[in-house]
């Protein structure tokens, strides 16, 4: 199976008074195309940092990140921006929608940045809004939507360019249980369509929706296993 994204000996150290703080220590990770991976661990274990490095939102202190076999950690800011808009979709805990743009404009933003044909962008946006149950909210503002609806818009924005990789950082962390369940169902729906997903969560229950789970502590991977049926056999290998 093709590797969607790969991290080799990935290290991130932050300068601190006295001893530098090591957020990630020589992480090795492979995410295969079409895989749904959940990264979990206690607060401060480095899971969000790892996600940011995979997304090209931050740069590693050492090590490599390869997207579909191509190194991305040494790309310029402009090259990274172009890569993010085409290949990587990102869903944040706090939705991070542009407050003065309508739902439609928020979703279209990355597609228009990629110079996709406007008609095609409109078609993709309409399809996503239908799938996400927001067809009647096209012209609403983010402030006029509930938290769950805002997160669905954020999901649509992340998927509009049909990225290689969908990264989600605590996507349900700011939602009530009903909305959280709906968002997870949507993630599973897109996973079944073939979307590669890496999800970060501190909630173990959510990891059950993923195929594979990585557990981190103090900047290192301490467990890596397949959930459900695969769990027992895989754990023995580790």
């Amino acid at each position, binding site marked *: 199976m093709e590797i969607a994204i790969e991290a080799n000996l990935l290290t991130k150290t932050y300068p601190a008074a006295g001893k530098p703080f090591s957020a990630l220590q020589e992480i090795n990770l492979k995410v295969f195309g079409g895989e749904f991976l959940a990264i979990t661990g206690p607060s401060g274990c480095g899971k969000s940092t790892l996600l*940011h490095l995979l*997304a090209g*939102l*931050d740069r590693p202190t050492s090590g490599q990140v390869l997207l579909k076999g191509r190194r991305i950690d040494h790309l310029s*800011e*402009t090259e990274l*921006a*172009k890569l*993010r*808009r*085409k290949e990587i979709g*990102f869903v*944040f805990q706090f939705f*991070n*929608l*542009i*407050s*003065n*743009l*309508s739902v439609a*404009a928020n979703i279209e*933003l*990355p597609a*228009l*940045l*990629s110079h996709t044909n*406007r008609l095609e962008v409109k078609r993709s946006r309409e399809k996503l809004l239908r799938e996400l149950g927001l067809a009647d909210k096209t*012209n609403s*503002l983010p*402030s006029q939507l509930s938290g769950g609806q805002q997160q669905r818009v954020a999901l649509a*924005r992340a998927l509009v360019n049909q990225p290689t990789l969908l990264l989600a950082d605590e996507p349900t962390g700011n939602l009530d249980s009903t909305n959280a369940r709906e968002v997870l169902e949507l993630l599973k729906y897109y996973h079944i369509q073939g979307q590669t997903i890496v999800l970060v969560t501190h909630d173990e229950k959510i990891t059950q929706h993923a195929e594979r789970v990585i557990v981190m502590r103090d900047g290192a991977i301490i467990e890596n296993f397949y959930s459900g049926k695969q769990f027992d056999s895989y754990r023995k290998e580790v």
Partner: protein
Amino acid sequence: MFSLYVSKIRVDLLGRPFQNSLILGVLAIATATLTLAINLQVLSNDSWEKSFVATNGAHLWLFTPGSNLDLATLNTLPEVKETTGAVPYLKEQFLVKNNIRYGVSLFGFGAIPPTVNRPLIAEGHWLEPNSPNQIVLDLSFARNLHLQVGDQLEFEARDKSHLKLEVAGLAVNTIQGIYPDTTPGLAYVLPSTLDKFEPDKSLWGNAMGIRLVNPNLARAFLEQSQQLLKSGFGWYDIQSVKDSIEASIRINAIFLGLAGGFALLVSGFLVAGAISSSLLARSREIGLLKTSGFTPGQVLRLFLLEYLILGLVGSLIGLTLGSLVSPFFQSQAISLLNLTPEVTFNLLLLSGIFLAMEAAICLFTMLPSWRVARLSVVEVLNGGVGRVYRRPSRLAGLALRLKMPIAIVTGVKEYPPRAMLTALSLVLAVVTTIFVVSTQSSLSWLTEAAFRGLPYDMAIFRAKVSDSQTQLIIKTYPEIENYFTFTERPAISGKTEIVARAVGGDYQKFPFSLVEGSIFSAPGEAVVGLGLLDALGLKVGDNLKLDLIPFPPGSPVKTINLHISGSYVVTNHAGKVVIFGLDTLKLIEPKAEAISYGLKLATGTDKERLRQRLLADSSGNFDISLSSNELPEQVKQVRFLVTLLSGILIISGLAGLVNSGLIRIREQYRELGILKAVGFTPLQLLLSIGCNTLLLTLASVLVGLILGLVVSRTLFDILLGHGLGLLPGLDWLLAITGGTLLLSLMTAILPGIIAARLKPVEALRFD
């Protein structure tokens, strides 16, 4: 609690050096502008009264052409409070500079000047005893001819011999109006120096300035004096000098006052914009303080103290800057406004400015911090007073529909209301620029020789040559294309002194600039200067009765009745000039002849060479003057000052724009992080920020252009007369728009670079 305040303020002031330096800079610029503006306002306000009081000005001046009349006998009258004593004078002596002769009246003051109408030294010193080679010049005369203390001046005496005098000082006085609006120029010498010009004392004049117990009874006093002296004498009261000086300085005072007023408003907007933006950007911090137990009152006190400390430092820097710059502006304004030269360091004024700044800081700190402090903690922590949009941005929607690049779409968003303060200061800067440009072009237009009532290239005053002989000489020169003849008479209508100019020859071929009506075509018709129409409350079509001042004194008064056929702008004699045909003058003076000749020369004529040849042909009996299109020095100075002030205002407006841009970056930090996360390149972010700034500037410039044109038109209508004055053309409007947009784009570079370089992860974590 106090120690908590101190430590929190200390942390805030030292821990946010960039933001605090920015606010400090804006406050300093605002205070400096305010100091300069108020200093100019104070100077230009009631400048005439100040000079009159400072010189202990005379209410009335009496003149006798010869020295045989003892004016000093009037000292005994009870209406007289004090006098200058009889002062000998010589009228129309000539200063020769670069082969041009400038008329000057010499007053023979003693080494100790009189207490009434005492000249106030602006530069240099007063005449020293036993120094007959010294001269003190009137400040406006010296400025106009670029004369300085220490210059050796050449004078021509009546017998054509030449005298050299050294300029000892420059002085301000209220004896007469400002040169060149009032001619001849004015200078003071020792009586012994007058001897050198005219040894025959019987040809000297005698003048006396009188301060009356009741200045309103000047007319009755004159009649009484006439009976006492039993002889005729010339006179003028201070009202005519005041009218003349106020007419000369009116435009200067208004221009300076207006520029100062604009500066005042801009400083207010700067302070309001800088502080309220900064405070609102810190709304989350206020929420955290409230979470820690701070009451709204304590939050208010904390921020008030913090910004007052910043205000204290900023105001002191600004006051120092303003006080350093002001003397330069003041010294320029002194000669523009014919002011007394005593510009002193006004501690009271500076304290007032300081207190006004601190009060403004209090107001603009209290309003937004009280607004935030009253919100609930949850509201503040969830976004504070950040703008809650109720509908999608229409501009962004429009940009999307117009298929503009997405970077522009995200940039074209509406500004929050507080950004309107920045916009307003920018609007004022543009209004000032339009006004300055209009003033520049209008002043050039108004001071063109033709417009000043001098529609000729060269003028000849014949002294001992007859009219017919003069015309014969003129006709021998092929380079003289046309000429007209004229002669002037001092006249009076009611109490208004007027110069009556009788014109003959080919005057129709000369560019007299008529504002309304037509040039005179029949005897009894006249064209009148706008200044005279204003003074007498007349209009074209009215009749004007003119009394020609008798010469020699005592001879019967001659009256002309004129029909006003047109009006024109003339800037000398405060516009109180009337021109009519020589045939009209001949109705009451059948033997009247032209005494002067205005010449129109062929293009490329060497004027100086022609002048020398005409002098030779007349055996030196012609007085020849060249009219110049060069701007008078006074006009140049006011142009320079207003331009400089406008530059300062534009810089202040742009400083506000940079500040607003940087504060907005801080407010939008998280949003910029989102844009970067979804794939905006640094260049696109720069474009987005630039577009945002451009939008505000464009709106401000458009409003400023319209307002500027309306303000300039209205002011010109009031100051100059309806329809007079030039507004900037399309080329200027485009240049102002382009220039301001370019400058504002430059101010967006710094915020843009900060935005482009931000790390998305840090920005997304930013609260």
